[in-house]
């Protein structure tokens, strides 16, 4: 029997707000335990939550970016359960009415367009962290993360392969960082996926029983966990077993998933509207304000790069991998004098390679877009050969400086003056009459000998194209 995989993803996107979802504490990562927890985060007696306006604005922007409906009237509920790192004994979340309804995320997978329908996106607060090691049999609680704003984005069960799920997650990651609502840092947990996986015989309409795999914080783990879970369920079914609905945890070290809790011990969270918080009302004016603040989205920009600059879909995709990457390109081509293809080639070639080698992000690049543009302008006007430009690029990267000043100071400009090149060639031919004869007798190989000598004589600065033309003309005796 052929099995089909059915996947739905729930992604917790940590919003890049300065303060927490319902308190004024900062949200920066990596602070000493409990220094970023105020009275509200500690759930002291008497404290109250106040919603973070920016977090709501971020949710609206996300909704607009995926073409979803912004709910004019949603509300916050309490999800009640006891856990030591959940200070209030409940998490404030949205249950019945989320702030964002519907929406769609589109991407191409191996050239084929895909659409993933979203069910909803809702606002909630994160819990703290329990630390069970290093405390000699006791547990430590760090509440720095408690109350951090999250946007939980839920898809319909529409994905049919691990590759599709990963492509969706990557596109979502690109989008939330692009519109500036998330820093996208997966190691720090700013973008975490839970995967709902089920299998069914191909052709069957009903879904199989699903399992939820929690806390996948890299694209690789997401893919491995889904593939592994698929195999586990298929093996189980093929050996006559049944899939039990449960929550499973992926262990990347052993590459396996294991039971976290089954449906039987599923808790009753006793959701009810939080009486401390009035309904979340979003009017059209607010929506329009956020729409105006939204940047051009990656898909639209990629399309524009193709039609306006004549780039390939592949290049356009690479250049819109992140907003910083796209901005770099747009700054370079901004003056309208540079060949967009030349810019694209240099960015995806030399720049990308150097960034990768040095472990930097494009926004931290040692060579700015303006510097690279100045460099490419000198390729375009013939001052530099490609090889020389790479040398200048290397110097720029290491030492910085101004492109034209560097070229002048190091005598790096290309020799494109015909008179200078002709003089050089004439001297060369006069010094090697035997080789001239050989060439004229039909020994074409000797041409390379002259090119090499001429290049050497010019200190490597001769314009190669011009040199070739002049040399051939002179050797042929014309």
């Amino acid at each position: 029997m052929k099995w089909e995989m059915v996947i739905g993803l729930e992604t917790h996107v940590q919003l890049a707000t300065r303060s927490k979802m319902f308190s004024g504490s900062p949200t920066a990562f990596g602070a000493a335990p409990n220094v970023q927890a105020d009275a509200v985060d500690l759930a002291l007696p008497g404290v109250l939550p106040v919603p973070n306006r920016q977090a709501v604005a971020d949710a609206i922007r996300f909704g607009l970016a995926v073409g979803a409906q912004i709910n004019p009237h949603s509300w916050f509920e309490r999800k009640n359960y006891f856990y030591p790192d959940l200070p209030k004994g409940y998490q404030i979340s949205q249950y019945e009415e989320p702030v964002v309804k519907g929406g769609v995320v589109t991407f191409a997978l191996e050239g084929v367009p895909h659409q993933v329908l979203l069910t909803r996106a809702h606002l909630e607060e994160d819990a703290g962290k329990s630390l069970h090691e290093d405390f000699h049999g006791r547990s430590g609680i760090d509440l720095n993360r408690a109350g951090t704003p999250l946007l939980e984005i839920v898809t319909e069960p529409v994905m049919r392969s691990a590759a599709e799920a990963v492509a969706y997650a990557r596109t979502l990651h690109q989008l939330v960082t692009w519109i500036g609502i998330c820093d996208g840092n997966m190691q720090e947990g700013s973008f975490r996926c839970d995967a709902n996986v089920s299998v069914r015989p191909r052709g069957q309409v009903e879904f199989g029983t699903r399992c939820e795999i929690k806390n996948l914080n890299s694209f690789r783990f997401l893919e491995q966990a889904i593939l592994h879970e698929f195999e586990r369920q298929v093996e189980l079914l093929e050996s006559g077993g049944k899939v039990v609905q449960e929550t499973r945890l992926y262990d990347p070290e052993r590459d396996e998933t294991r039971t976290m809790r089954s449906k039987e011990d599923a808790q009753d969270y006793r959701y009810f509207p939080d009486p401390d918080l009035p309904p979340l009302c979003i009017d059209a004016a607010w929506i329009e304000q956020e729409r105006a603040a939204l940047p051009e989205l990656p898909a639209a920009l990629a399309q524009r790069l193709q039609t306006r600059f004549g780039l390939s879909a592949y290049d356009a995709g690479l250049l819109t991998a992140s907003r910083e990457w796209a901005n770099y390109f747009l700054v370079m081509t901004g003056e309208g004098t540079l060949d967009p293809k030349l810019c694209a080639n240099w960015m995806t070639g030399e720049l990308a390679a150097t960034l990768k080698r040095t472990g930097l992000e494009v926004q931290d690049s040692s060579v700015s877009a303006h510097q690279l543009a100045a460099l490419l302008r000198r390729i375009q006007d013939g001052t530099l050969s490609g090889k020389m430009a790479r040398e200048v690029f290397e110097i720029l990267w290491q030492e910085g400086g101004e492109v034209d000043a560097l070229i002048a100071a190091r005598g790096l400009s290309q020799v494109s003056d015909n008179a200078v090149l002709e003089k050089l060639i004439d001297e060369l031919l006069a010094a090697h009459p035997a080789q001239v004869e050989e060439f004229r007798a039909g020994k074409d190989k000797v041409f390379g000998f002259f090119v090499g000598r001429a290049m050497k004589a010019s200190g490597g600065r001769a314009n190669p194209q011009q040199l070739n033309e002049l040399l051939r003309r002179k050797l042929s005796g014309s």
Partner: protein
Amino acid sequence: MNLDDTSLRALCAGLRERTFSSEELTRAYLQRIEQYDTHLGCFITVDPDRSLSQARAADVRLARGEGGPLTGIPVAHKDIFCAEGWRTTCGSRMLSNFVAPYDAHVIQRFNEAGAVILGKTNMDEFAMGSSNETSFYGPVHNPWQTAHVPGGSSGGSAAAVAARLAPLATATDTGGSIRQPAAFCGISGLKPTYGRVSRYGMIAFASSLDQGGLMAPSAADLAWSLGTLVGFDERDATSLARPAEDFSTQLEPSLKGLRIGLPRQYFGAGVDPEVAQALEEALRVYESRGARLVDVDLPHSDLSVPVYYVLAPAEASSNLSRYDGVRYGWRAQQYGDLDEMIARSRAEGFGAEVKLRILTGAYVLSQGYYDAYYLQAQRVRRLIQQDFLQAFERCDVLMGPTAPSTAFRFGDKGSDPVQMYLSDIFTIGVNLAGLPGMSIPVGFDGQGLPVGLQLIGPHFGEARLLAIAHGYQQATDWHARVPGRGEKA
């Protein structure tokens, strides 16, 4: 200083004219507390050093000619308000070791006004009770008859004001916790419109119903101090911004033409005849000063108690989840694992009434019961609100008994919680509708226990309510009567 027969206005004048200092005034009240409170039990915490240092700071302001209506005035605060550096117990063993590290908005406003914290008053545990009998810190005795309860949950504040151990007290009202003890103790109490007083730092019982308020001998005293209590607070998302009002200058409108609505449901068979009698006489006083009586209907009022005992426990069950022994408060000594630590800490830290309400609340919110209880109660709550709004189309104020009876004896309603719950039957609707409500003393029963008249106004009608109460108090002197405070003759 005659502390039995004074007003806040007179105390303020005395302080400003330097007839006496805030330190002297505070010492005088502290001395009364020392003298009487061992048999009354009004206070959970008194800290003379802290109080006197605040008093001295107020004296510095007063000496410079600065300060407002409450500068230098000692105020008793219900132990539900967090006050920085003060143990804040909420009447519970759970918080017996909790010293608040911050000020509630209400405390902050009183501190900024230069008022002196006289002490923290006794209360039903987490404000759950109508007799003050659920307090972990022992009973409060009604100063009029010490074998009787003071009412609850703000029993300590009410008894302290009645016994003149404090000229003014803060309190809170979730289902009648200001008005019912005010009635039982023969003083004036005001629960403002929901949202007028910030709940920040006021330990939550039922968030959608809780509201801070005041207790004092007279409506004029309440008007004198209400401006300090109310005000927008950005830390409470349910706080409402309103233009500032000077309540004490709005006290003199005529009662002529005042339309007093009498909900027929508030004058039924359940009301003690002596209470009904005192009310009749109070209404005569209003009529004699030009008011008209109008019969009105609150058709859903018999549902208010059941609705309240679904919604309030539901919210409480969640609000009290934070008391888990992890970060502060009571933690069990013996436990095996984390779950057991939480369970035992709560089992030991909470009293029986609190547990009963947590269980009730968890039940009505649980899967399969939510629609039938919680959602249904929310729907009926809206009907009750509409009843009030319709009634106010025909009258300016509603009047009726604050409680069906006068203060009952200790233990009288101990065995059946529903009997206890029914003592709030006339006060609960006001909380469900978010309206302002008052209780003022209008006489005594045959045992010498006070009878309270409840006044209910439309939303934000505090100024008018105070004026209507003040009009009555200018014609009568029930509010000026002082009890025996349990002294052995």
